[in-house]
């Protein structure tokens, strides 16, 4: 059978093409444009090819924050995913308790990012913050402003406090979608609590966990506001993550070319890792 060619149909997708062009393609191409030029002023710009990329990839500042960034995201996923699943499993399934838990869990998600940073900035202070004060009172030498380990600990704790709810809520909705018959069948088959989790709950949570892992990876990998407010990237550069390094370069130093190259590399890393997560998790069961 011959397919009827109808080129007029292409005009129908034009509005979408325009919309996507202005919202995504044009800004992205601007960045691509900057990343291959050395710009002095509006009229003076030279094509430099891949030079900025070469320079950026060898920049120890970027390399350091990239390593820090991966370590940070690794810990975020390592803590928040299991913790979120655990919280979801422990939540009551009906009655007032369930509604109350949902409200409590939603609260951290509703707080603006810089407010979260401020809350923890105050909370962690040893003089007026409850958390910092409590730690020092029981004899722990804690100071997030001067000790890099304490700073890391506080930033991680803040992220866990802020975002574990998201994973928990996703998992909770996933768990609620499992029909009762599964638990009844498992009980008839004499499955242990662990077996129920391993063979019923976890497989049924797979699809929400893909979303949870992706969201938490992308968000944590692009984290900016909260550590910026809490530690300002310090002490030293110990909590300076990729976004902050990029911002310093682009706005603080106005190195538009290298910053543009940096942005693109950053974007590609997020894209690549997300794709890796997505394909590995969604192909887990096809492997056998």
């Amino acid at each position, binding site marked *: 059978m011959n397919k009827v060619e109808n080129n007029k149909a292409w005009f129908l997708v034009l509005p979408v093409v325009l919309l996507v062009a202005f919202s995504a393609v044009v800004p992205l191409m601007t960045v691509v444009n900057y990343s291959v030029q050395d710009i002095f002023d509006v009229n003076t710009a030279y094509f430099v090819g891949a030079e900025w990329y070469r320079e950026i990839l060898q920049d120890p500042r970027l390399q350091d924050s990239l390593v820090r960034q991966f370590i940070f995201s690794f810990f975020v996923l390592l803590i928040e995913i299991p913790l979120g699943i655990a919280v979801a499993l422990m939540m009551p399934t009906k009655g007032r308790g369930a509604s109350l838990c949902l409200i409590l869990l939603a609260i951290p998600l509703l707080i603006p990012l810089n407010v979260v940073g401020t809350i923890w900035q105050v909370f962690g202070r040893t003089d007026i913050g409850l958390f910092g004060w409590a730690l020092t009172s029981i004899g722990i030498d804690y100071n997030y402003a001067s000790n890099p380990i304490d700073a890391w600990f506080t930033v991680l704790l803040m992220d866990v406090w802020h975002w574990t709810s998201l994973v928990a809520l996703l998992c909770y909705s996933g768990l609620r979608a499992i029909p009762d*018959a599964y638990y*009844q069948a498992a009980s*008839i088959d004499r*499955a242990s609590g662990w077996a129920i989790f391993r063979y019923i709950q976890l497989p049924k949570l797979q699809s929400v966990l893909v979303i949870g892992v992706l969201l938490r990876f992308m968000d944590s990998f692009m984290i900016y506001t909260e550590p910026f407010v809490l530690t300002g990237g310090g002490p030293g550069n110990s909590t300076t993550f990729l976004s902050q390094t990029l911002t310093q370069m682009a706005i603080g130093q106005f190195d538009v070319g290298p910053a543009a190259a940096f942005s693109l590399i950053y974007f590609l890393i997020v894209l690549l890792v997300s794709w890796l997560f997505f394909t590995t998790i969604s192909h887990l069961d096809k492997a056998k």
Partner: protein
Amino acid sequence: MAEIHLKTLAHSYSANPQSDTEYAIREMDHVWDQGGAYALLGPSGCGKSTLLNIISGLLSPSEGEVLFDGQRVNELSPAERNIAQVFQFPVIYDSMTVFDNLAFPLRNMKVRESKVQKKVLEIAEILELQDVLKNKAKNLTADEKQKVSMGRGLVRDDVSAILFDEPLTVIDPHLKWKLRRKLKQIHEQFNLTMVYVTHDQLEAATFADKIALMYGGQIVQFGTPRELFEKPNHTFVGYFIGSPGMNFIEVKRSESGVEFDGLKVSLDEGLQDFLEQIPSSNLKIGIRPEFVHVSVESITGSYECAVTHVEDLGTYKIVTLDLKGRSLKARLDEDQQVPEHKAYVSFPKQWLKLYVDEYLVEGDSE
């Protein structure tokens, strides 16, 4: 292997039931023999799933006892009662292979792996699942999934009964009969007590030796499919079993029997005597469309009626008749002459049933 005895059993979802209507299961006493195939039949909301869950142990009855081989099991969990259950929607462990699914209950019981292998292969062969044993259970068709969930019950040696909760709901029509036959075959082979919940009378009749027909939380009749058809002991049974259901006509007493709109219907002497002793005025006569005698010409004892509708169902026809404003259905065989406009009907005595307060009354002669 077990005989199931429901002893003065009743169940209500409310804590302090005041009236009958608050009971999902009204008091009943039934014994289900070991090795029998039973169907719990009834419309939606009649309490059949509640009863099944009480037997399986997913629900504890608020009153009375469930006895397995004479032992009270009210407080025992489904696992402790050694029952297996097949649910309406197939329950399989998605992430496991078919083999692991079937082996799951055995492995949970810490059975030796060599025995697990042997048992799983044996059951897979009976269920015709050998070819898919290595496949992920997730990718099976609905009927294969149901077979896997049944297989998980069959692999256990200690299973005393298998309960089915409308297991064919999601199965394609052309596979239903196949799976139903498999169930029957397994029943014969394993000599297990099987209880099958359904709202489909055909499924119930082909599967079960005995059907418990439920209505409003009660088992209104417990008997063979034939008994339910020929001698429905409640108007609901008459109406629910058969397609179309039984014809019922409200009647009043008369000297020689009963009458409606001046038409006299004579009854057996036994029934006649019985009728004189009871005060109730809620009287109905009932006859199956299959047993209504239809003729084109008037014969003795027949009533004249108008033909309102003829429905041709291929091998037989359903004729709707108007008898003094009452609608009556009759089934005509293919070779029978179909009356036009006017017909004469008569009710053979042995098939004409009398219902007082919705329950069948029978004369001494029977």
